[in-house]
């Protein structure tokens, strides 16, 4: 039990949960279930963030990701009224054949990534000191000011585009 009591133990547990939940997201049939799994995945990652000494990021993850973005998803799902059905018209090709290629590709990618990480002989360890919100804030509004401005423009653009596209078609000219 000491494994789980320690920070490392918690980290690996959260990581396991995140991976499993993500797998369920990707393979799920039911949209709502998948969304819920996504929430779990995000929360697990948030735990990881906290354990890695980034409480501010963990907070943002929970509030913005799990809180706001996922709500958007939920709204969208509600608008479509999607149930179990993944796609309405395209006949779903079941079985492994559809999965085989991408899985192979992904496996290759993973092997390569792991190989790279393994071979680069990273002897670094995470530190347990927190990087608190104050440090983040100073940096954010100091050297990264421009990035913040750009990000805000991006958000604005996202807002405008989201509004424009989601508008009922008959109101404006066709795209």
């Amino acid at each position: 039990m000491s494994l789980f009591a320690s920070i490392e133990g918690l980290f690996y547990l959260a990581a396991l949960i995140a991976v499993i939940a993500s797998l369920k997201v990707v393979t799920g049939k039911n949209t709502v279930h998948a969304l819920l799994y996504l929430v779990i995945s995000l929360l697990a990652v948030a735990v990881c963030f906290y354990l890695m000494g980034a409480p501010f990021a963990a907070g943002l993850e929970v509030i913005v990701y799990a809180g706001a973005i996922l709500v958007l998803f939920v709204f969208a799902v509600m608008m479509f009224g999607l149930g179990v059905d993944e796609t309405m018209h395209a006949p779903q090709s079941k079985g492994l054949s559809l999965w085989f290629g991408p899985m192979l590709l992904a496996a290759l990618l993973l092997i390569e990534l792991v190989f790279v990480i393994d071979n680069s002989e990273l002897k670094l360890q995470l530190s347990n000191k927190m990087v608190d919100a104050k440090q983040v804030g100073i940096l954010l509004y100091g050297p990264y000011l421009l990035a913040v401005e750009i990000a805000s423009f991006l958000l604005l653009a996202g807002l405008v585009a989201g509004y424009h596209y989601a508008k009922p078609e008959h109101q404006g000219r066709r795209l």
Partner: protein
Amino acid sequence: MTDIPLAHVLILSSLLFTIGFVGVVVRKNTLFMLMSLEVMLNAVGVAFIGAGSVWQEADGQIMFMLILTLAAAEVAVGLALLIRMQRRYRTLDIDVLSKMKG
């Protein structure tokens, strides 16, 4: 000092990333593709936070925040497009949208 090596964090990030990637490639449902994208973005966030934590710098978290903004904007636009698609084609099958072929 915790005993979590950076390598493990990066492996976690790679795992999540690959899972997300598989989702994007395999799923036909655009909604699921968007969710897989979220997973992938998240994976990148993990890597950044891990790196920030190693060197005790706040830059990693700032990068994460920028990714977050990106994700938010992307989801906003993506879902709006999804709604548009659902209206026009009555389906969320991404393969229906293949008019931009060469």
